């Protein structure tokens, strides 16, 4: 196993995912097998190669004028929210 249970618990915390007791061993095994699989890359010589982040190399990210182009739809959008009050999203108390 390239990943331990502690590794997976840490990753799950970073990813803000609750993982149940039953799920945990399955993830330890499957994530280990994925990490082993992608480790094939470490055996490849990539020296001198520039990392590629965009599939159309040389394509410039467009900018637009800083102008208001959208109207206010907050009521419609908040229709999908689990909890809203006075136009604000409601979450558990953060500051006592």
């Amino acid at each position, binding site marked *: 196993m390239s*990943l331990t249970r502690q*590794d*997976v618990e840490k*990753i*799950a*915390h*970073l*990813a*803000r*995912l*609750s*993982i*149940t007791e039953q*799920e945990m061993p*399955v*993830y330890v095994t*499957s*994530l280990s*097998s*994925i*990490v082993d*699989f*992608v*480790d*094939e*890359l*470490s055996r*490849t010589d*990539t020296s001198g*190669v*520039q*990392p*590629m*982040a*965009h*599939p*159309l*190399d040389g*394509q410039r*990210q*467009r900018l*637009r004028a800083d102008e208001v182009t959208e109207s206010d*739809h907050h009521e*419609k*959008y908040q*229709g*999908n*929210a*689990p*909890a809203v009050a006075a136009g604000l*999203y409601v*979450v*558990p*108390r*953060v500051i006592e």
Partner: protein
Amino acid sequence: MHNLFIGELAERLGKRQISSVELTRHFLSRIERLNPALNAFITLTAERALQDAAAADARLAAGEKGPLLGIPLIHKDIFCTDGVKTSCGSRMLDNFVAPYDATVVARLKGAGTVMLGKSNMDEFAMGSSNETSYYGPVKNPWDISKVPGGSSGGSAAATAARLTPIATGTDTGGSIRQPAALTGVTGLKPTYGRVSRYGMIAFASSLDQAGVFARSAGDAAAVLQAMAGFDPRDSTSVDVPVPDYAKALGAPLKGLKIGLLREFFDGLEPRNAALIEEALNIYTGLGAETREVSLPHLPLSVPTYYVVAPAECSSNLSRFDGVRFGYRCEDPKDLLDLYKRSRGEGFGAEVKRRIMTGTYVLSAGYFDAYYLKAQKARRMITDDFRTAFEKVDLVIGPTTPTPAFDIGAKMNDPVLMYLNDIYTIGANLAGLPGVSVPCGFVDGLPMGLQLIGPHFAEAKLLNAAHQYQQATDWHKHAPRGYE
């Protein structure tokens, strides 16, 4: 009526021999009768479809003409549809009603299409078999014990079963071409940036692209025509003129240089290889020249993809926080508990696995070893394609290593599942357009021939696929019970 191509349907609609309402009712009744065995839909929009069809009939009655005016279609449930549930195949979005239309949806609506419903898919498009959907697996109409492929499995199965003439899909690592191959339909993944992704729920942003399922390359060309083009609302949309795809379909293939991808044939199952050889003979007969080309770094494409795609997914899916939209857990004790349980309960197993893979490869201490390394390998693969396209116009090979496999066969082994994408991922990493067309059968199940071209070579690709379909009839076969 359901076996006609959309060119034929448009002609009959234009001559007022049939109405769009009649056509829509026909497909809705097929869906009602045949879909329960397939599970290809998440949402049916029958009422709205009949309204859209009546509107299309009014436009037709006013003398308006158009290749898609009055034609029914389905949208993969990854595209936002104003006022209609848009789940992305996830419990996380089971309660989500999109507040606006994706550009793809808006453009196809403007062209007069009639939306029959939203198709089933792997959760957040993460899967190669349509088994990760919260709404259950889609069945392959050629054999309902088999998967239809994924992630756009519902769109593919519905098109193959003649429950719709055309469908939209998305392709991040093969999610259009692979299910098209496994269900015997034509599937086109355009160049990265060719079609707007505004309103298309993101999986891996440097790879995702919207495309088309149809029963012929000619039909796919008509749909792409309406979908393609610059959209200021998508920062990755490319401002390159859209050619007339239908016009490009007539060009003879004499002198076209087709490259056989050596790496695709290494170890290929003999019956699959024989089908590809047969297709090559057709192309040679049409005047094309074939030669072998090599992409030496192609074997790296699956591990490269399974670093890059999960990394981007872990970032994109961080927006699902249980606060602004989507699933929220019961009685969170604090904000951290709300985040963790909403995400833990709202996402399915494969999505969580990919988020965690992505979180791991991006985490401190591992970034250089995995993510940066994969970005370098990605350039090597892309450079291989560039070198190949200096010698040939298109490259050709199989779409998948095997025909459709049994439902459940690969669900416990993610790496085995990921290897389904071995022939399709390269085009996504390099941002290239690719098309899969039916090229025969193995064990009674359809197989796909894949053509990949340089950036923005959709016209050439579609023409090559069209010419092949003029010389063969594999694309006309219907699964038994769906003729």
